[in-house]
């Protein structure tokens, strides 16, 4: 109850324009790790190779289906994005015999569920340097929950959200999860943090439903109670990837690429994988660094080296403040780049920043600028607080809550047992988050690297969808 006061505090925005920009935007490259990169590669093992040839090529050449009507029904058959069959991915094998569970009768007592409320926890870094990348997702989560509560989506019950800070610290994350489950007695958790590993085993052992953003952490593609908002990423990201990033950079006009990341695991392994992707696309990685510290915005030495390397393309895996600082310092030093690709940071407020022209952003849903505007975005816009920005981080929050609410519905709003949530939600074959992206089969994509994602570029001070607003796909890539 106390925490409901947080909405008001979130509304009062204190950031200056620019800062603000950075701020919430600051999405994360860290995180980026997740959508972009993890989204990577199907086909890891030799066994899968056979299956994939056709699909992979299909995936590689095709983009997502023309998404004119993006509500739920993009039939998997027509969507080129369709992923290989469950058998392809070892992680998904655990769901081979999964069958729908009906609500028990009489309904047992369910932790966190009372006659009129369902208590849901949220773990998100609200403090510390990495908060830039995650904190404002809470606004999106609350907006989606407000919608559900207002429209009575869950029958007689409403959702009560308890958000706790994990400060992006694995040990804290573990404590916080315990607090939510044992102290607050929540039904399930919405988690948007790069340190979700901290509590993963605990939440899995207790079979607590978790929905959220995987931020490149592989356990989202390994443990059955974790539901990534779109795709969980590869169960073995170090082994499986995709050529997508390399191809995107190539199409944007890069030949020699500098890659910059650092800080946490997601970011460092992101850079490692993308280097392979870039090389696979026939480009050259001329400079790579994974040493950037959280909060660092002074890049003299890195700019110096990028200049010396003769790079004409840049890919980063750092947060938005750092991206913008780096771009500015590069331009101050007279470095001209054909292609600048940020895996996150898609936010209208970045448009005001000097030197952002020509930069491209990856995102895991259709661009907001898609025409006609998908109904999902109209809803999002309606329910977001008026003074809240509509950006990638907020929408990631919204999508995480969307997935969680979907889970409760699948479990049956009358008697949503945790078991039924985890079991039935996984059985969805054409999940689109109400039309925010192309349909996903939650079982066959489980633990699978995924080849497709969406891109926008800043042109004349506006975001313009790349590749006609369709998903850009890459070929599977096995990393030795």
């Amino acid at each position, binding site marked *: *109850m*106390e*925490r*409901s*006061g*947080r909405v008001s*505090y*979130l509304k009062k925005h*204190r*950031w*200056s324009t*620019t*800062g*603000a920009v*950075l*701020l919430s935007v*600051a999405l994360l490259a860290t995180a980026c790790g997740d959508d972009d990169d993890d989204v990577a590669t199907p086909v890891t093992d030799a066994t899968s190779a056979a299956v994939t040839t056709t699909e992979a090529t299909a995936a590689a050449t095709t983009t997502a289906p023309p998404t004119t009507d993006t509500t739920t029904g993009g039939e998997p058959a027509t969507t080129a994005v369709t992923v290989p069959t469950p058998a392809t991915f070892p992680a998904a094998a655990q769901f081979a015999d999964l069958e729908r569970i009906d609500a028990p009768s009489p309904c047992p007592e369910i932790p966190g569920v009372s006659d009129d409320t369902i208590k849901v926890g949220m773990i998100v870094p*609200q*403090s*510390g*340097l990495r*908060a*830039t990348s995650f*904190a404002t997702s809470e606004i999106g989560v609350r907006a989606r929950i407000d919608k559900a509560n207002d429209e009575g989506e869950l029958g007689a019950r409403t959702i009560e959200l308890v958000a*706790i*800070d994990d400060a*992006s*610290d*694995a*040990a*804290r994350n*573990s*404590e916080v999860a*315990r*607090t939510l489950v*044992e*102290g607050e007695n929540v039904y399930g958790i919405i988690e948007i943090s790069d*340190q979700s590993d*901290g509590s993963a085993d605990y939440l899995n052992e207790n079979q607590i439903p978790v929905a959220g953003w995987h931020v490149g952490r592989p356990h989202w593609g390994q443990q059955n109670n974790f539901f990534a908002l779109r795709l969980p990423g590869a169960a073995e990201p170090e082994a499986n990837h995709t050529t997508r990033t390399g191809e995107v950079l190539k199409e944007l006009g890069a030949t020699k690429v500098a890659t910059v990341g*650092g*800080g946490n*695991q997601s970011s*460092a*392994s992101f850079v490692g994988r993308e280097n392979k992707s870039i090389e696979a696309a026939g480009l050259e990685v001329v400079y790579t*660094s994974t*040493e*950037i*510290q959280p*909060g660092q*915005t*002074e890049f*003299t030495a890195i*700019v*110096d080296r990028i200049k*010396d390397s003769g790079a004409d393309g840049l890919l980063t895996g750092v947060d938005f*403040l750092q991206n913008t600082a780096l771009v*500015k310092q590069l331009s*101050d*030093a007279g470095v001209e780049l054909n292609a600048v690709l940020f895996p996150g940071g898609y936010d209208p407020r970045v448009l005001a*920043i000097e030197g952002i022209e020509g930069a491209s952003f990856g995102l895991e849903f259709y661009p907001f600028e898609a025409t006609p505007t998908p109904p999902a975005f109209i809803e999002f816009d309606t329910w977001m607080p008026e003074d809240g920005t509509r950006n990638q981080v907020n929408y990631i929050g919204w999508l995480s809550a969307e997935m969680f609410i979907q889970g409760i519905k699948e479990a049956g709003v009358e008697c949503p047992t945790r078991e039924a949530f985890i079991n039935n939600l996984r059985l969805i074959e054409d999940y689109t988050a109400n039309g925010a992206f192309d349909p996903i089969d939650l079982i066959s994509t489980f633990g699978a690297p995924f080849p497709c994602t969406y891109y926008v570029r800043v042109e004349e001070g506006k975001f313009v969808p790349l590749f006609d607003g369709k998903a850009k796909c890459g070929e599977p890539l096995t990393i030795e």
Partner: protein
Amino acid sequence: MWPYVIGGLVLAGVYSIATLGLILTYTSSRVFNFAHGAIAFFLAIFFHWLAVDHGWNPKLAGAFVVLVCAPLFGLFLWWALFRRLTEATSTIRLVSTIGLWVALPAIGRILFVGREEIFDRTGVGPTPAASWIRVAGTVIDSDEFLVLLVSVVVAVSMTIVLRYTPYGLQVRATVDSPRMAGISGINTNVVSAGSWMIGTTLAGAAGVLLAPLKGYQELNFTPLVLAMFAAAVIARFHSLVMGVVGCLLIGMTQSFIPSKWVRDDFLYRVLPDQSQDVLISKLPDSVPFILLLIFLLCYRGVDRERFAVDTRAAATDGPPPTARDLDGWRRFRTPAILILIVLLAPVPLAGRWEAIIAKGLAVGIAFLSYTIVAGEGGMVSLCQVAFAGIGGAMTAQLATNDSWTWLPQVNGLLAIFLAALIVVPFGLLVALPSLRLGELYLAMATLAFAVLTQNLFFQSASINNFDGGVKVPRPHVFGVDFKGDTPFYYLLVVLFVLAAILVMNVKRSTTGLNLAATRSSEIATATLGISVVRNRLIAFGVSSFLAAFAGGLSVTYVGIALPAREFDALIGVVWLAIAVTWGVRSVAGALLAGLSFALFPQIFAEFEWFILVLFGLIMLGIRSNVRRVVVQRIALALWALFWLGAFLVWNGNLSEVPLIADSIREIPTTLFGLGAIGLAKEPRGIVYDVAHRSRAGRAERAARRSAGPSSADEPEMVMP
């Protein structure tokens, strides 16, 4: 080349502005202000609050904060705290400003930041920084230019003021000899207050200039703090010129380390391949303390005398308590009650609270290490947290054989013990060179050790694992499986009791008695032929063992060893504040410190009304302890407000009170910081204070009953 030179000059500029203030205040009052960087941070976020939250013109806000508020704030701090410290013992002088260091940023965040981090970079100049000048093809942006300009202005005007003005003459006279200056008719108080005002102004200027460059998080100010401390040591705490030279040295080194010439051509060849990147990227942050240690060792040979001279300080911390021990069963009453509470806690508190108390017990063992090193040894150590962190990291490596495969893999419990033993030589290594140099240098050296351990060891890939840490399994010993929380909880209780017995025995041992004698008078003790250094080394060794043991237990309990986050050097500063707040002379103090470190943040987060309860208690405490009627009435009024607040809680409205909602996360830290500051008044901590009062009261009552006034004069001592 030029970009690095300019980058280095900018860093050196900010450092110098702050360092000059730090040295000036130290020389004029003999109080080393550990909170100097905290003041810079406080004033910077105050500036941000005015300029961004309240829409002031940034230039006006900057001028107002630096030229008006900062001097007044300095005057206030001098009046409220620093002037009292001048005559206090050196330990209290250190610990009180360390308390301010802990409390001030937390108070600042409550007042000016709230619950959202500040991520913008608004500064006095244009935002974002404009590219104003080009030197040799390198852009100097507006923020950097301002730093360079202000640092030159400050350096020049300080020189003029100190050399050519009457005030300067007075300051120099006071620095050379306060007594002589006083005899010659100089009001040293005025001089001291003046220099504190100037010092705070310089801190404010550094803060307001630094924030747009680095950001408004406290973390971004840490490099400034460390550089200042190192520069102050290089300046031997008195030479302004050497201070500036030190800053230039630090700034330039930091700037050039990542360059091709230093890193590619030198460091990459010298350092081992593994985790090279991490080490090198953390090297700039480590530079100040590497230089500090080098200079410390050099200076030691040059003139040891200078360090020891501190004529103003009284040598002891008050008369030794003249109390007799409690007799009979009473001796065991308090410990028995505490143990009973701890033993029974898991029954009603199964699950999460049990886990939190367990963590408190583990940390409590680390706080026991302060009982030895600070309580008995009278030394201010800021690196117990580093010992705990090393203990934790080594435990993880021994128990899992994770990345250091050459280590033998051993059972979890044995791993903790072995890890603690491994840490002992480190403890001795830190203490050995600095023990003779005096308390301030010991504090600096231990802080240096903690920071370097943090940067160069905890951050290395095999320990930190990119912030993921190393997972540690719970042990299985003697047929007992400690995987469950409750068995491990009781294991912790047993181990805490064992550690407490160890500590009490050390106190009673010859070494303990020697330490007590040293605390009373170092010179007298040495005259008796007792080796002061040897005894202090033993104390350091035992305390490092305890801290490391606690670290191992803590990571085993949490299940993840992530010392870079859990045992950060600055957390060690908070530890010290908590430990001294409760009292470093007793086992009960350590237990309460551990429990409150783990419990308070959780309690405040969970039960907002606890803030009101605490507030009520504090007001009641003031009412019954302060003699002045006005203060009593104010406390009474606030106490009434407390009930009004309680009424609000009853209605569930408390979270609507913005200050309360914003401050929950900061309150525990604030309290501990303030507690440490409060030591200026009661040096023995809360446990002593409370126990002393209750026993004194009892003795008084007993005396009244027996009608003989004679038996009441002797105050009793608290804990054994």
